[in-house]
């Protein structure tokens, strides 16, 4: 094994408390350049909370979030978006009344300095065209985003994230609502996207669909009741007794 590269995005010792509920306690999550990392766990394990901490929607009670050596724990969501953290949502958050193309353009403009004044139009066109090619969104460009079925909607959300030139993409259950064919296509696209530009963007995904996770992830972090119970490559996670116990409700299942 080569020496471990510096993580691109690292959350360390993260704790989040909602009133009396300890949603996360002392959790570490890392995403290294070029990798697809997975974050899994039973319902209520704190996966989405961790995502919200990483994207700045929740301020953790304790712990640090570091992006490529910069402490961003106190940064608001939009600043992180500009610094290169892009995310998708479990429930689609498309700009429903815009076309797919406008969704992508708006994402580029939102994440680039001066975008709102129309600066960098040539760069914008180039990047949007690249993303459209990569995700094969061409046929959808003129469609109203709110009318798309979930599978295509997820693809557009990924495209929107890519238009921000992200360093890390956080995908919140990209497989939910997709059928087997769409899931397979999504994982193929994901592999093509991850690390395509000098190890960026790296991907962190939260997912319930184990097949997808085991298929695409290089490294998996498992949460249960707000604690990290395991981390490692898919094979190791599959065989980990603690993980099995968590998923099977603590029963001793062979």
């Amino acid at each position, binding site marked *: 094994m080569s020496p471990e590269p510096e993580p691109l995005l690292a959350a360390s010792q993260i704790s989040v408390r909602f009133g009396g509920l300890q949603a996360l306690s002392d959790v570490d999550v890392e995403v290294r350049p070029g990798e697809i990392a997975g974050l899994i766990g039973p319902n209520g394990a704190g996966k989405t909370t961790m995502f919200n901490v990483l994207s700045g929607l929740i301020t953790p009670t304790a712990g640090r979030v570091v992006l490529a050596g910069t402490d961003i724990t106190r940064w608001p969501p939009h600043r992180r978006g*500009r610094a290169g953290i892009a995310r998708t949502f479990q429930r689609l958050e498309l700009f429903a009344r*815009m076309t797919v193309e406008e969704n992508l353009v*708006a994402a580029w403009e939102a994440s680039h300095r001066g975008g709102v004044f129309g600066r960098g139009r040539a760069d914008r066109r180039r990047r949007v065209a690249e993303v459209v090619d990569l995700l094969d969104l061409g046929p959808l460009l003129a469609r109203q985003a709110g009318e798309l079925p979930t599978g295509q909607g997820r693809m557009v959300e990924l495209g929107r994230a890519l238009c921000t030139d992200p360093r890390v993409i956080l995908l919140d259950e990209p497989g939910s609502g997709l059928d*087997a064919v769409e899931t397979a296509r999504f994982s193929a696209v994901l592999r093509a996207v991850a690390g395509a530009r000098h190890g960026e963007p790296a991907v962190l995904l939260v997912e319930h669909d184990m*097949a997808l996770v085991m298929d695409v992830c290089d490294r998996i972090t498992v949460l249960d009741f707000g604690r990290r119970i395991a981390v490692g490559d898919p094979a190791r996670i599959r065989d980990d007794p603690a993980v099995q116990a968590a998923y099977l409700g603590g029963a001793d299942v062979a």
Partner: protein
Amino acid sequence: MSVVWSLVVLGVFAGSIYGLAAMGVVLTYKTAGVFNFAYGAIAMFCAYTYWKLHDAWHLTAWIALPLLLVVVAPVIGLLLERLFSPLSGERAEVQIVVSLGVLALLEAATPLLYGGEDRGLQPIFPRSTFRLGSLHVGWDQLGTLLVSLVLGGGLWWLLRHTRFGTATRAVVDNRDLAGIIGINGDWVRRVAWMVSSVFAALVGVLLSPSQGLDVYVLTVVVIYTFAPAVLGRLVSLPWAYAGGIVLGVVMSLLTEWSSSGTVADLEASIPYLALFVLLVVLGSRLREAGLAVRPVRSAPAPTAGARRGLGRSLAVGTPVFGALFALPLALGGPHLGDVTSGVMYAVIAVSLVVLTGWAGQISLAQFSFVGIGAFTVGHLAGTHGQTFVPAALAGMAIAVPLGLLVGLASLRLSGLYLALATMAFALLMDNLVFNRPGLTGGYTGITVPRPRLGGISFASPAAFHELVVGVLAVVVLGAALLHHGPVGRRLQILRDSPLAASTLGVNLTVTKLVTFAACGALAALGGALYGAGQRAITPADFTFSASLQLLLLVVLGGRAVLSGALLAGAVYSVQLFPLPITVIRYIPLAVAFGVIFLARQPEGTVATSAGEARRILTVLRPLPRPATVGRFDGSCPAPIGLRWAPAGTARGGAAAVAAGPGAPSAAPGTATALAGAPASVPVARATAPREVPSVT
């Protein structure tokens, strides 16, 4: 000490009526999710009805009052329930607009039905007083307190200790779930609306003898009670009542120091100040009713709020502006002035289209900014002899910090609460700023000169008209260009998904503040022209009612399109024309009806009529052959098989309904699940048995 004590007692008496009204407002909000801006108008309408029954038709109070409370008010309540129930699940904006439309409807209909002049209303309780310690208390005051206590207590008892109360709480908690367990939510809502209307009728009848029976006064006085209602976070009846009492006491205590001047203005502003401060402080803890049961995202109509091609807008806009520029050739004198006023109004309306239609921030305070612009120009260009342009710029500059203030409120509030906060802001501006005679000339107002720009005088009606049309053309073209570019996209993504926009890198705070400031400045520019157009302005031109009328006209024209602003201006100018008096009197009524019907159509009159025309044409087309429709009887070959086990659902535990390929049946008292796992992902299902409850 005794003075303070007696003021407190009088405050309790006065506050009890606010408490009654606040409970009425809270009741429909918590059961039906509708904040009734028209509450005061209902009270006013009922008071007029009582006047008609009692004073005009000479029915005794023993007949007139029951007739009002048992027939008229409940019928109004039922009508409102019918109006609002199809709107549940709509965005807050739609309900706000409809309820403001009802307010306008009642304000327009009352003079038509009962005559518009002020009336005196006989109090239902005797005017004489009795002694309470050293204090003279009117029987009417005592009566009011007792009525409000009995009704408030009765309502509280009804909601706490009866089946109806349980049903109401179930509906409030979760409308859909209550329906599933067999509670008729419609019935609960109907009763709530009726009770709320009866309270409003009482408020009207009890307040009118002291406040005077007037179309506008009661509407505004009832706004006082919005602060106590918000104190109860719009859901707590006891808090609303207590808030009303406290408000009454505070206002009563302030009378100790005030008879006129600043303190009097401050006293009148207390309810609005309280409303504004409460909203901002409670902020994020205020929830919109109905957000818990967020509607399934219905695919929006393709055109709704969509930003269409710039070319088409230009194609339509060019001839319109051409005609406006050419108008002085055909029309002169006062008629031209009426059109010019409409054009100025359109400039102001553009600021509201941008703010409300595009940025999704509802504002009931836009005319406060107009007033700032007008009075600033009046002072600088009129009194101090400055030229017009620097004066107008100064007005815009003053509007910016005020826009930021409202913008700050918008950071913590949205939808209904933002509308309430802007309303409070407008009323505060009326009372605290526009009421200063030193600033605005009081009732007589001040004069504003027509502008001179670069040695050219725009004093003549024709020249001023050309100037105003020119400004509107620039404003509309600028807005259209922004709308079709990155700025328009930025505003649109903030409406569609603020969450996604912020994670992509949009600073919501800055965007909202800039939007409010810019729209405030634009309204102030409109105000500078408005002042110059009117030549003489008074504070009455810029009250909350003016802001309300602007919103209604913009909704009528189309709040999400620039043509909506132009139409708003057109309607405004039609009102000014010397039409037959019967026509003039019906215009507000027509506007109110139009607003209620068009509330759901952000593109307003033109787009909706075009859409309807298209639909009528479609209806005339022959139908395709109807497809065969399967029935859910459990035996059909539909992909989803459902079989209800009625015995199991009625009592003794529910039987779960299983869905999946084939048609499984659910036996009473058992839960059956059938997972439809695609063959390619068996691993996932195998590892997730934890989520399947074990039911035997």
